C-alpha cells in the first residue's frame, strides 16, 4: 500500500471547491464534516451552505432529502472519502430514488484528514465511483486532473442526475476556515434564504 501517492495528486481541494461553486446562483450545498466543510467556507460562507460539524456518514442522505424536497433546485453534496465510506449504503438509497437534481462529489485524498491523516480504504483497492455505478447511479466517474474537472463541471452542475464523482485531491494540511458552528443558526439561515422569513417563525 502506497502511503504517500496522494501527496502528489495534481488537484488541490480548495481549487476544486472554488470551481464547483463559482457559478452557484441558487445551488444548494451540503458539506460533510471536516475538510470539506472548511473547503466550502473558504470558497465563501453562504446562507445556502450547510456545513456539517458532525453526523459522519449523513451528508449524502441529507442531500437526498433536500433534493427530493426541492426538485427544481440543484443540490450539490461535497464530502470526503472517509465520510462517504461511513454512509456508503446511502449511494444505493440515492440510486433507488434517482433524483435528477442531485450531484455528489467525494473529494478523495485517501486519508482521514482531521484525525492524523490515517489511510482510508480508497488508498487501497476501494473504488467509490465503481461502488456508485454498481449501486445504479446514472452518471459516475473519477476526476484526476484540471482538464477532467473542467470537462465534467457541466455534468455535475446541470445534467439530469443523480451524478456521482470521485475527485482525487492532494493530501495536504491547510488552514482551517471555519463556518458558524451553531446548528440552529445554520438551519435557520438556510431555510430563510431558500423558503423566506415565514419558514423560521
Amino acid at each position, binding site marked *: 500500500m502506497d502511503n504517500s501517492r496522494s501527496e502528489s495528486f495534481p488537484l488541490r481541494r480548495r481549487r476544486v471547491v472554488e470551481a464547483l461553486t463559482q457559478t452557484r446562483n441558487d445551488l444548494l450545498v451540503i458539506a460533510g464534516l471536516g475538510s470539506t466543510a472548511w473547503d466550502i467556507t473558504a470558497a465563501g460562507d453562504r446562507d445556502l451552505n450547510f456545513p456539517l460539524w458532525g453526523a459522519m456518514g449523513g451528508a449524502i442522505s441529507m442531500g437526498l432529502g433536500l433534493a427530493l*424536497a426541492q426538485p427544481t433546485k440543484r443540490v450539490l453534496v461535497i464530502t470526503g472519502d472517509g465520510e462517504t465510506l461511513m454512509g456508503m449504503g446511502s449511494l444505493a438509497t440515492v440510486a433507488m430514488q434517482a433524483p435528477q437534481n442531485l450531484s455528489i462529489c467525494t473529494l478523495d485524498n485517501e486519508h482521514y484528514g482531521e484525525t492524523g491523516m490515517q489511510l482510508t480504504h480508497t488508498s487501497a483497492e476501494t473504488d467509490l465511483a465503481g461502488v456508485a455505478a454498481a449501486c445504479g447511479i446514472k452518471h459516475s466517474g473519477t476526476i484526476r486532473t484540471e482538464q477532467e474537472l473542467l470537462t465534467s463541471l457541466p455534468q455535475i452542475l446541470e445534467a439530469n442526475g443523480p451524478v456521482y464523482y470521485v475527485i482525487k485531491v492532494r493530501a495536504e494540511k491547510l488552514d482551517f476556515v471555519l463556518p458558524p458552528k451553531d446548528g440552529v443558526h445554520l438551519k435557520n439561515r438556510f431555510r430563510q434564504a431558500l423558503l423566506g422569513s415565514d419558514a423560521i417563525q
Partner: protein
Amino acid sequence: MEWWKQVYDALKQADVKQVAYVPDAGHAALISACLVDNDIQTIALTTEEEGIALLAGAWLGGVRGALLMQSSGVGNCINMLSLSHTCKFPIPIFVTMRGLWHEFNPWQNAMGQTTETALNTAGVQTLTATSPDEVGPLSHATLDQAYTGGGMSALLLHQRLMPVKTFGKGSPDDG
C-alpha cells in the same frame, strides 16, 4: 380502525410528504399504503440512521417527513440523532417494538428492551401505544411534538398490537 391506518391518517393530516423506512413486518401495511400514495415520497433506507439525515435535509427544503423502523433500528441511529439534537431538526419516529411481548427470538431482546432508554438518553421524547385505540391520538401527538414543538419524538408501538411471530413454530397468525 386498524392501528396502522390511524398512523397513516395522522401522517396525512400533518402534511408529511417524505416517509423513510427500513421495513418491519409490523409496518408492512403502512409502508404499502405510503408507497401507493402519490403525495408521499416513500424512501427505502439501507440503515435507519440514513433516515435521520434524510429528514433533516427534507426540513431544510421545507418538507415534513417521518421515519418508520423496528426497535432494533433505534440502535443504528444514535450518533446521527446528534444532528437533530444540535440543529433542532424535527424528527418523528414510529417504532414497532420487539423483545417485549411473547418474543420468540431472544436476539431481539437486547435492543427491544433498551429502546426507550436509548431514545430518551439521546434526547428523543417517547410515547407508547399498547392498544389500538391509543394509536391515533398518540400518532398526532408524536407528529405535533416534532413539528410544532420542534423536537425529536418517537411513538413506540407495543408488540401487543402485532401478531405474535413464531417463525412457523405454532401460531396461526405467524407474521
